[in-house]
């Protein structure tokens, strides 16, 4: 029992010394999904973020950076504990990194309560876009509906009579299909929600086969996407019923896993490999060189999150206590891999959405090519309900 007392004293002292040692650095908490089925996404965002830091000489707006990384295991509970630790023990200045919307919604309140900015490199739940929008929230990726709105628009222009919709049963899944239906005006044969992180889609695929729709749209982030597309191809459906996907389900990582079956698939994205600006060219080139793989849109979002922080901190001259100025500086926009990026008052970007298609190049390499533009300067559907200015 004596040892326990010592342990407590020790812990107390440890915390005390931490509290005393506070040189002026920027502390960024990076909570992301780094293990399990969604790990590829988190690792891409992290690698993109780290690449940007390297390009910025490990400084953000002139201040040295300390990044504290935690794995949320795609589990809201684990994420809460990690965020709690970062807010209360490490006292970070910014938080970023979260991939999945359900994770973000589980920790958002705690972050905003501490008046800490959350820079979202991916998760863009509708909750934070409308009435519940928050001054401490900025998203450098896209609102959850957007890629699906773009695909809905495209499927609509192709005049498909009806479509079968599939998504996991969680907030982003519902947002996604809502977004698709906002622009697709044809008939929805069925809207099937399955358990999050389900890996065997045989039951759903049988349903699709029986329903005989003209097209299928599936929102399946992470490992679910790989499994669904693989099984869809193995069931022989890819040749019979065209499959449309959001951009991340047809990105380099999925292509690596599924292979030739992907060729021909159309998908939507706010970023493409070919975007013609110096920041993007440097990003794509150095990412390939550093990590030996083709960057995905997730990686570009991680890269942009760091660039946004850099620009905003520079704008307030490194004084992180000026929260209002920081927010103004962030919303004013910055130069991203997608060119100059502006934001709505709810913290979501106003940007273009492109159509891409998976093609096989003459050399045999399979890539996801930009083939058109679906929306220009597109805003999210909820911004009008946000009271922030």
């Amino acid at each position, binding site marked *: 029992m004596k040892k326990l*007392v010592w342990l407590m004293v020790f812990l*107390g002292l440890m*915390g005390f010394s931490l509290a005393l040692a506070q040189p002026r650095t920027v502390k960024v908490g990076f909570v992301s999904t780094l293990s399990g089925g969604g790990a590829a996404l988190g690792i891409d965002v992290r690698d993109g973020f780290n690449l940007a830091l390297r390009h910025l000489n490990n400084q953000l707006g002139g201040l040295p950076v300390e990044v504290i990384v935690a794995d949320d295991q795609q589990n*809201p*509970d684990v994420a*809460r504990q990690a965020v709690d630790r970062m807010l*209360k023990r490490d006292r970070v200045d910014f938080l970023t990194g979260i991939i999945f919307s*359900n994770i973000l919604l*589980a920790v958002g309140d705690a972050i905003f309560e501490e008046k800490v900015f959350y820079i979202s490199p991916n998760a863009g739940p509708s909750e934070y876009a409308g009435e519940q929008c928050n001054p401490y929230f900025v998203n450098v990726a896209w609102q959850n509906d957007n890629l699906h709105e773009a695909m809905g628009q495209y499927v609509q222009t192709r005049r498909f009579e009806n479509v079968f919709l599939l998504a996991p049963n969680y907030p982003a899944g519902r947002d996604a299909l809502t977004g698709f239906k906002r622009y697709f005006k044809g008939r929805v044969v069925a809207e099937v929600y399955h358990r999050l992180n389900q890996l065997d889609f045989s039951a759903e695929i049988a349903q699709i086969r029986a329903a005989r729709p003209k097209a299928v749209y599936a929102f399946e982030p992470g490992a679910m996407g790989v499994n669904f597309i693989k099984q869809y191809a193995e069931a022989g459906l890819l040749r019979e019923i065209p499959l449309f996907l959001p951009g991340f389900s047809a990105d380099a990582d999925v292509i690596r896993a599924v292979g030739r079956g992907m060729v021909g698939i159309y998908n939507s994205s706010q970023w493409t490999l070919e975007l013609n600006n110096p920041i993007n060219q440097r990003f794509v080139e150095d990412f390939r060189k550093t990590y030996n793989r083709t960057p995905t849109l997730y990686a570009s979002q991680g890269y942009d999150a760091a660039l946004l922080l850099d620009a905003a901190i520079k704008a307030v001259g490194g004084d992180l206590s000026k929260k209002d100025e920081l927010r103004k500086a962030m919303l004013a926009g910055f130069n991203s891999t997608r060119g100059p990026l502006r934001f709505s008052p709810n913290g979501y970007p106003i940007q273009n959405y492109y159509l891409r298609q998976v093609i096989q190049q003459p050399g045999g390499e399979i890539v996801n090519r930009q083939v058109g533009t679906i929306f220009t300067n597109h805003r999210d559907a909820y911004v009008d309900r946000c009271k922030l200015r």
Partner: protein
Amino acid sequence: MRWIFPTVLLGLLLAFPPIAAAMGLEFYQGLLTKIMIFALAASSLNLILGYGGMVSFGHAAYFGLGAYTVAILMREGVTSGWVIWAVAVGLSALLALLIGAISLRTRGIYFIMITLAFAQMIYYLVVSFKQYGGEDGLRARRPEFGLFELNDTTLYYLTLGVLLAALYLLYRLVHSRFGRVLQAIRENEARALALGYPVFHFQLVAFVLAGALAGLAGVLMAHYTQYASPNLLAWQQSGHLMMMVILGGVGQFWGGVLGALVLSLVEEILQDLTIHWQLGVGLILLFIVLFAPKGLAGLMRRGS
């Protein structure tokens, strides 16, 4: 001399929040709150596992139900803390009564598995209600208690008070007539029956009591994280609580408290050291099971 240590410890626990506030150690105050909540849950499990010999692999059901009751009632507009507590504890007890009444007809491995099965059912049921958050869990705002405002510090004292009260209750219980019979049933069920004890009823009462206390721990957990997570209902959570009990000492009075304290601290420290922290937890646990079957409380007793 025996009272010195507990008094000092209690004094330290009482004095911790102001010290923490002064030194910016709120995080550790939160950690202590969490440990005390787990101590309560593990002690409740120890009552049936340790004293009653009932290897329930579904204790998370009551723990999670307590937390979800808070979240759901707050969402539905019931804001009185006392009402919420009463409903949560009552529901947990009722659930334990239902599960116990069926499970206690089986023995051994079948009992382990049927309690697990019931807990899994509760898990999937809760997760299926999308309006209550589904897989994402549900926000659980802190209710009103009238006498005081529930914040991190009052919650700390509240948890401390509940834990002490529960421990006192358990202490009286295991030394009462009822407690003695419960332990006798664990030792030799056929003999207890032949002496004229209605074994089933004793076990069921203990089962319900443990469920109610675990529900209360779940309520406090929801107040602490302000969030009801499906994780609280998962089978790994049941395993986690069992780990605490066996680490601290099965059927040792301080087993649950000690196990919760040590396991939480070990997890906290290892998590900071390495991402492979679960390896450390696993090795420690394996060592305890193989070489110190009476847990830490048993080791200490032998040492002193």
